[in-house]
């Protein structure tokens, strides 16, 4: 099964507490929805293989805890991530306002700058909307992010969000290939090491 997988991508989901990060993930991986989902502790981890444009990609998705007390842990997941999903709640303006903080954190802890970001406005099924779609779109454009509005409850846009993100990552040269290229280099390094050893033997004979 693993053989036809093109690559493994590390995706990170961040955002304020209670915006529905875990629900989005649960909808995407298990296609379920639990309105009473408990707060994530530390980080949650799920794996899913999806097929985009005929390419199979294995997604290792790290769903971080939004709660303040787990904030210290978040920096440890940024490293090596190829895609970040930044989630806000369209019915809570404060979660939208705080996006800037998250972007700051992203900038501080991300090891690469070509990482693909996606902004997701969640809970569009609710009626008491506080953040307009255009506002979200504007914010996303300003920070050159992908944008989609979604609802984990009604399954609206969830699949699409992940697929689009993966597509963009695969289209970005050097973002995911570098991983495999690195491995290649490592291997040849090892072989070089062997060669070196043999050479050492030679030298002492001479």
């Amino acid at each position, binding site marked *: 099964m693993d053989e036809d997988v093109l690559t493994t991508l590390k995706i990170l989901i961040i955002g304020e507490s209670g915006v529905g990060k875990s629900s989005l993930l649960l909808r995407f991986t298990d296609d379920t929805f639990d309105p*009473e989902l*408990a*707060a*994530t*502790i*530390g*980080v*949650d*981890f*799920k*794996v899913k293989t999806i097929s985009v444009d005929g390419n199979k990609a294995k997604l*290792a998705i*790290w769903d971080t805890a939004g*709660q303040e*007390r*787990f904030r*210290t*842990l978040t*920096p*440890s*997941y940024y*490293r*090596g991530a190829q895609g970040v999903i930044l989630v806000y709640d369209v019915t809570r303006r404060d979660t939208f306002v705080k996006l800037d903080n998250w972007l700051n954190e992203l900038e501080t802890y991300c090891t690469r700058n070509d990482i693909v970001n996606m902004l997701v406005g969640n809970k569009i099924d609710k009626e008491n909307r506080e953040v307009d779609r255009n506002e979200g779109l504007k914010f996303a454009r300003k920070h050159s992010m992908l944008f989609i509005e979604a609802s984990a409850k009604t399954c609206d846009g969830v699949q699409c969000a992940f697929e689009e993100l993966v597509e963009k990552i695969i289209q970005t040269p050097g973002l995911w290939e570098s991983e495999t290229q690195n491995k290649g280099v490592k291997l040849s390094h*090892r072989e070089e090491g*062997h060669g070196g*050893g043999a050479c050492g*033997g030679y030298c*002492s*004979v001479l």
Partner: protein
Amino acid sequence: MSVEGLAWVGSEFPGSPKTQKLDSGSLSETLRRKSVAVYTNKMCLLKEGVVRGLGMATWDRPREAKPAVEGEPPLPTGRELAEANRFAYAALYGISLSQLFPEPEQSSFCTEFMAGLVKWLELSETVLPTMTAFANGLGGEGADVFVEILLKDPILKKDPLVITQDLLSFSLKDGRYDARARVLVCRMNSLLQVPLEELDFLEETFLESLKETKEEESETAEASRKKKENRRKWKRYLLIGLATVGGGTVIGVTGGLAAPLVAAGAATIIGSAGAAALGSVAGIAVMTSLFGAAGAGLTGYKMKKRVGAIEEFTFLPLTEGRQLHITIAITGWLASGKYRTFSAPWAALARSREQYCLAWEAKYLMELGNALETILSGLANMVAQEALKYTVLSGIVAALTWPASLLAVANVIDNPWGVCLHRSAEVGKHLAHILLSRQQGQRPVSLIGFSLGARVIYFCLQEMAQEKDCQGIIEDVILLGAPVEGDAKHWEPFRKVVSGRIINGYCRGDWLLSFVYRTSSVQLRVAGLQPVQLQDRRVENVDLSSVVSGHLDYAKQMDIILKAVGIRTKPGWDEKGLLLAPGSLPQEEPRQAAATPSSAETSHQAGRTQGPTPEDASKVAMSVNSSQAQVSAGLDRPEGASLPEAASPAESSHICSHGMDPNPLGCPDCANNIQEPCPGLD
């Protein structure tokens, strides 16, 4: 989703574990009694090795037991950390697991341990998938962030040992000490910048607490000094953390026979409910689990009948102490004079407080040693030896290049060498089965050997690798100048057996080893002559060429070699080693022999590293004093007389600064520390 409640409670108040504890303290006594009784039944099963995932039943127990310690604030444990930090702690543990044991055959162990720790730390079960991901090698990039988080924790800042002791109690919670668990604790220690000595100290403390339980009452009556008081708290913590976990995990240091005494002592600490469990048959059974059958352990092992071609096979104690991990040293050959005993080369070895050396086939090893010496004396010309060394170094090892003078005496060595090669393989296989049957108890073993002793280890590992339950027994192995195959593919299976390090100490200029392999060494890679090219984190090749100039040096330079490969040696040994070397002080032997009838030499070293037992203290005082007296009287050994003045003060100051070692010079500060009673040893 029943666990959510727990998680939420923790979220609102970071200190909530404490509140919970108070609640559980008000549990009725009967309830507690009942739970311990239930637990005792579990321990019966445990002894059979049926219940391994005991964590499930035990993880909430220490909390209940805490109220039993009256008037003392509970010591911080891993559970008291904030939830985020407990998460980081568990995650770091998972990452370490995946880094140390990435092999597929270890994955069940990793998952099991990870699940155990999550429960132990009272983390919500919802984190389990994530932790399993960490344990399977995902998310390892964040390790340093977790370390940073933990190092910033206020509890850990105050006392960096919290995690070490928490992990130690976690590792021991079901009455067995897996070698992998110890390697993990060491890894976590190094990640969290806790010196390894602290782990040794904690292990010691735990054992001492058991030794002292008998005298606990009278001791509490004394007004002890504050430092001692602190140490007792540690012990109590450990005792409580472990004993209550089953009411039975307390180990009989003194063996099965003394176990009821241990139970009686423990009763004063953990209350009658726990003691009932301790005194029960099941409790005693588990007590013997860690230390081997009936407490006799390895020394009690007698080869019942001749096994295969082996004529001699016994374990001699090198030290008198007891430790949660042991080291077995294996000598490669015996010679006349100083190195006529098996224990002689290991005088400086101080890897653990409980060390043994394997006595095997003395007759043949003596023959071999004599042959080796004959060869050397045959080549009395040092120039010839040096020339040989460089010939070997240059790599031109063909039968034709050997000097005629050496070939003339070849028959002297070839026969005993051949016999010993064969015997060492047999002995190694036998040793493997002893270790597999856990004669040493459920605790990690490290093996160290030189020359044919290393070959014994090689075959021991090879034999163990063929068995199913070979994992988690061996911690480290150190092979020095091993006359064995050095091909990576032969060492590959050892990864499964060895949890810690595989050290191959080799010497490129070992002409003797090249010589005995002269017919085959062209196509054969000998491990004692070159590095083993196995890509694994365990394998460490140490080039000893600058330390060892010939095969015979492995015994003579052992203390330097041990330092070179990073094995702890006895403090001050390098200066006084020759002075105090066994056999060099014959007039002292009778007294030492009285203390340890089995081996006169060993008591020397025992005394020098032992903990604060009065016997040890007096012994050290005796041995140090007597050696000093001899020095001042003008010892006839020139090598000993050359260094004594410099050595003695250094050593004594070292002992006093530790505050826990014996007190040879009568320093009043330390004198108070060494009066701890040591029941059960007489």
